[in-house]
């Protein structure tokens, strides 16, 4: 049963060193606040799972919190590379990152199979691609009716899933609308889960399309703007300017570490982080 708790308590209780954790969000609803709190609390040795690792995983990888990344697309959408991810993969800084790499279809099938309590998922996928030869957890299965060979992928079994959402109602149920990605599947694949939300409401908005019932989660924390610089449809817009700024912030090692120290590690919480970033955005606009 989901309890409404402060985010720091949720992370302290539910995320452990070495966990296999997914902080999911397909461009939309990326749980930046929760990811920052994991960094503040100094978790290490994580296996990070996500279809579309972007800035948040770049930050976590750059600070050495992860030892493995399971993913299908890692970039700064519309901007370019993730410099910290690349530095870890290309040069082993701050430590070598083990990659387990899939296609979106394969990752989605792994999430669905895990949410369904099956040990594997079936798809037409990876055929003709070099991916299968360079990754784990991809195999084949033969149709018992047609004899056709298909691709099998191992179901996800996560220690922790963390997602952001728009709302929690008074009974602890979560409502999501807009791009819902694999938010539901991630939570249903995980032994423990944390959901951050924009707002607590009496009743979920009529636009709600995906519901996570209270009893499938462990903790819910209200963190307004908790997906920034990603967005929450109905609450905020994507901060495209920050995504563009990240390219410069993250390009070199020392400035990156310094930025993370000042803007994340030494902040008390996400609202302080947001104030710092907003002030710099305002200054940047003013100086144009």
């Amino acid at each position, binding site marked *: 049963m989901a309890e409404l708790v402060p985010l720091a308590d949720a992370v302290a209780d539910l995320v452990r060193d070495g966990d296999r954790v997914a902080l999911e969000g*397909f*461009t*939309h609803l990326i749980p930046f606040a929760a990811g920052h709190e994991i960094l503040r609390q100094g978790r290490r040795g994580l296996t990070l799972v996500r*279809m*579309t690792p972007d800035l948040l995983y770049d930050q976590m990888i750059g600070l050495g919190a992860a030892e493995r990344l399971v*993913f*299908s*697309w*890692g*970039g700064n*959408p*519309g*901007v370019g*590379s*993730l410099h910290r*991810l*690349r530095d870890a*993969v*290309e040069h082993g800084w701050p430590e070598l990152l083990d990659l387990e*790499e*899939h*296609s*979106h*279809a394969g990752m*989605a*099938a792994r*999430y*669905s199979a895990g949410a369904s309590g099956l040990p594997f998922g079936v*798809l*037409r*996928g*990876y*055929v*003709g*691609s*070099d*991916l299968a030869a*360079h990754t784990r957890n991809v195999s084949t299965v033969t149709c018992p009716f047609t004899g*056709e*060979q298909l691709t099998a992928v191992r179901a996800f079994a996560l220690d922790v899933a963390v997602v952001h959402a728009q709302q929690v109602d008074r009974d602890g149920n979560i409502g999501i609308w*807009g*791009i*819902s*990605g*694999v938010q*539901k*599947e991630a939570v249903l694949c995980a032994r423990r889960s944390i959901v951050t939300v924009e707002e607590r409401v009496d009743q979920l908005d009529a636009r709600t*399309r*995906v519901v996570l019932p209270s009893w499938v989660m462990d903790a819910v924390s209200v963190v307004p703007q908790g997906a920034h610089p990603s*967005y929450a*449809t109905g609450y905020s*817009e*994507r901060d*495209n*300017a920050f*995504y*563009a700024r990240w390219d410069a912030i993250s390009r070199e090692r020392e400035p990156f570490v310094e930025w993370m120290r000042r803007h994340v590690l030494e902040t008390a919480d996400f609202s302080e982080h947001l104030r710092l970033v907003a002030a710099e955005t305002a200054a940047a606009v003013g100086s144009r």
Partner: protein
Amino acid sequence: MTEPGERAPATADEVMTVVAARELRGRRTCLVGIGLPGIAASLARQVHEPSLVLIYESGAIRARPTRAPLSIGDGELAETALDVVGVPEVFSYWLQSGRIDVGFLGAAQICRYGNINTTVIGPYRQPVVRLPGAGGAPEIAASSREVIVIARHTSRAFVNRLDFVTSIGHHEGGDSRKALGLPGDGPTAVITDLGVLRPEPDSRELVLTAIHPGVAVATVRERTGWPLRIAASLTETEPPTALELDTLRRLSAGRATGSAG
């Protein structure tokens, strides 16, 4: 309307986008990959094929963007869509089931058979440049009825041999794609900022079938990593019309307000 004379001439990128958009004429459903396809697909829907159904990996079905989305998970796509489904559903019920006419993809590297690399330059375990990875492309390339690729024509991109095959095109040419059991025709056009390449019917090797105005064949050859053959019927691309160019620039301006290139 402004007169053509008052308009800045089309850039090479603009010609590429305009020509790619034309390629979607007469198509019903298009799965729009990440990167360069985004703006060309939006342009096609606005200028050529208002009923073209644009589908995105993010789950947006029949999105009708009025500005070029910055990413395939842009809020604009969800807000203008007929429906937004979960990511597992878009790959299973919509792509894998064979309901996509055109898969529209970008490429970091592409070879003479239209196979695509978006994973890595150099060896996989000792990368020279680590690229973003596969995303939805391997299955889009495999399951769409046909594939259209859009890529800037550089010798780093158009290579004789890929460092990594992320997404299958015509495999090793000839019937080798079909022999893998894949449905669909594979890449039917590769649109670049220099011209258009299409597979030769039998060998499935990409040959130059159209060249953009003002581009020399020699330039295309220079920037192609294999001995590029030129179709006997080589044509010159019709230059962008005023409507195409105005619409493209309006779409791009909308994107610029998002303030990240």
